[in-house]
């Protein structure tokens, strides 16, 4: 299949992170086009036509999200870019912002115009402080060239753009926790409703979008939403940045057209080139640590035997029983030597560490799961612990203020679903489990 790149095509061009080089390669055309020849609503319409779905993980249609923005008279509105990228396995936004900062700035201007926002923010995780400086440099250039500030390109449209850092908290990727953090508070997610589209930053109507979503607005406005929608399959339109990590020959960030086969992505020469060190594939978490893990026989094929594709629909085929999710595109690959129990404990520790602690199921439940998994991994578990884990995660899932509870519950549930034998082996053979790994599980002879 073809391999069009819309977001990172020119990043290897010398000086591409400077305004002049970026501009020379056609940069900021979308701002000119939108501000000079389109109304804000026409921009929103193009984004709707494009079928673009939020690239942060939830996959909610961006154009629809934009159309929910409340527009009361005389009240300021904001666009906030979510650059808090913290989902384990995900590092695509970092790559995009570092290599192509002006694309994000351009997307912020065009999108802010569409939403009628005059003060917009990029909230970036504190660990990416060096990228904050890259973005601020790009913003300064854009101000100097008249693409930010008062009366941009003589259109009468004003926009100020600022970057604000977090301080180390995964939860701030949740949009209302992000807004709290942007207000200088603890990153406690807010009760919804009201949604940010009605009451967001400082109580003003606000749209929060992922870095990649905002960047994708640039090609959508340049080429038209319909053109964008031609890329991909069905409701998975456009290109997507995939962060590939784990035991791969060539991990890294790849821009793919949605619809590429998982097989091609893992083994193809243009992509990850297979499993590192000549090992076999054991499992894959295709969309960031919170999505269900898939055992090797469900990675490249669905349970029904169809080719698994890199699309929202195909990765979810089979539901949670035999499928997973595209999520944020954090594609984590496990070779045959990896221990699923250890990894599940590791992820549980992550979620427990990152829980804000506001609501009881998440505060207490994530910590409890971490401790039980720690016990199992370190040879002190018993069979009841496996059932206990299933029960704890059922009592967390769906009962929390924000999706972190689900994100913590799903990986544990999926690991036990597909790798129960390996968990039981840890209980039955604790000595062995300390010295070697379980290895591959065999595909059930009956289709699951």
């Amino acid at each position, binding site marked *: 299949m073809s391999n069009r790149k819309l977001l990172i095509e020119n990043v290897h061009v010398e000086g591409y992170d400077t305004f002049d080089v970026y501009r020379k390669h056609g940069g900021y055309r979308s701002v000119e086009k939108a501000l000079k020849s389109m109304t804000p609503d026409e921009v929103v319409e193009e984004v709707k036509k494009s079928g673009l779905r939020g690239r942060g993980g939830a996959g909610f249609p961006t154009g629809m999200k934009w159309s929910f923005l409340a527009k009361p008279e005389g009240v300021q509105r904001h666009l906030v870019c979510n650059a808090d990228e913290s989902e384990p396995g995900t590092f695509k936004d970092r790559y995009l912002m570092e290599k192509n900062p002006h694309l994000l700035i351009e997307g912020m201007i065009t999108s802010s115009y569409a939403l009628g926002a005059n003060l917009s923010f990029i909230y970036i995780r504190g660990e990416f402080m060096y990228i904050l400086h890259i973005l601020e440099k790009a913003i300064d250039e854009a101000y100097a060239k008249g693409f930010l500030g008062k009366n941009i390109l003589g259109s009468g449209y004003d926009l100020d753009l600022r970057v604000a850092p977090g301080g180390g*908290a995964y939860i701030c990727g949740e949009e209302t926790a992000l807004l709290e953090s942007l207000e200088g508070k*603890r990153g406690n997610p807010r*009760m919804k*409703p009201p949604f940010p589209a009605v009451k967001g930053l400082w109580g003003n109507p606000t749209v929060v979008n992922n870095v990649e979503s905002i960047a994708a607005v640039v090609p959508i406005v340049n080429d038209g939403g319909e053109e964008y929608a031609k890329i991909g399959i069905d409701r998975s339109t456009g290109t997507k940045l995939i962060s590939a990590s784990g035991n791969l020959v060539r991990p890294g960030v790849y821009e793919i057209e949605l619809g590429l086969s998982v097989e091609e992505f893992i083994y193809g020469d243009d992509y990850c080139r297979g499993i590192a060190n000549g090992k076999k594939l054991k499992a894959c978490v295709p969309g960031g640590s919170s999505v269900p893990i898939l055992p090797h026989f469900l990675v490249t094929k669905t349970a029904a035997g169809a080719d698994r594709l890199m699309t929202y629909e195909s990765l979810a085929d089979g539901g949670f029983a035999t499928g997973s999710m595209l999520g944020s595109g954090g594609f984590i690959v496990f070779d045959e030597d990896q221990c699923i129990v250890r990894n599940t404990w590791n992820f549980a520790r992550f979620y*427990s*560490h*990152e*829980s*804000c*602690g*506001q*609501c*009881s*199921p998440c*505060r*207490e*439940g*994530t*910590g*409890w799961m971490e*401790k039980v998994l720690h*016990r199992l991994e370190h040879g002190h578990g018993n069979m009841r612990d496996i059932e*206990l884990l299933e*029960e704890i995660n*059922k*009592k967390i899932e*769906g*009962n*929390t*203020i924000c999706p972190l509870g689900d994100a913590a519950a799903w990986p544990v549930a999926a690991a036990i679903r597909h790798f129960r034998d390996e968990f039981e082996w840890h209980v039955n053979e604790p000595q062995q489990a300390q010295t070697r790994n379980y290895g591959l599980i065999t595909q059930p002879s009956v289709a699951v």
Partner: protein
Amino acid sequence: MIKVTIDDIEIEVEPGTTILNAARQAGGDIVPPAMCYYSKLPGTGGKCRTCLVEVAAGSTADPRPMPKLVASCSTAVMDGMIVKNKTSERVHNNRGGVVEFLLINHPLDCPICDQAGECHLQDLGYEHGSAKTRYEEKRRTYDPIDIGNKIKLHMNRCILCYRCVHVANQLTDKRVHGVLHRGEHAEISTYIENAIENDFSGNMIDVCPVGALTDKTFRFKSRVWFLKPMEAECSCTKCSGKAVVWMFGNEIYRVTARKDKYGEVENIDDKAAWICNDCRYDKKDTSKWNIIGPRSINRHSVISQGKYKTFMDKEQKKIS
């Protein structure tokens, strides 16, 4: 007015009313429990998740059920909404799960806790808890600390409802305590040694649903069910002066605000009747109060189980 059905009981309420408040308007056993929501403190609610209910139909316009259980304290009713609380098995199971979560790190020190007998977590544990814990791990522990000379903080017992933080924000001029750290390490603290000094800070004790914040002038003096709650008033320049004095014989053991059946400070003249620290801590002499008469207490409460009478009878016998 809009119509909502909760556990097969139809209620008419103002638009914007939450499910929990609609249920409270109807009263009875359809009212979900609430550990963090406090109607007199705007901004509270949503955190403890004990008030989760099932929405079997969203509204007349959109009768689809809501996929997840919702926090009834922070979900507004819609016209034609159908809610299940005590009639939902799912609610019962999941509320039991929440109670289990609240208890795994709880010290279960009711026998020495001043809140025993009027503790909402104790009630919930009684209704939903199991006799045996499944938690094998070491419980989280903190040393009890003084926050000010009249309030003791037992962080071990805290369920992080945030009510006391809202009291400090809304009733006092300067908040010196708050929630520090995060996740399972989140705790109520002043961070540095710092006393909470404010005329209304004592209300933090009244809003605490558990025994995390207790009145140092009353600690270990008596079990609440051995005391007789009396409605009393005094002329106070700082607060309404309308309180409940808890008596043993002719002695006042403690003073609290007047609380309703949900454990919330009552409204008097349409205003929450918070009491000031002078009334709470310093007026332990009956001469300071005009004692109106016995305070009615929910007949299911351990406080109204006649323990006071039997205890007094025993004492009388000893004397005679």
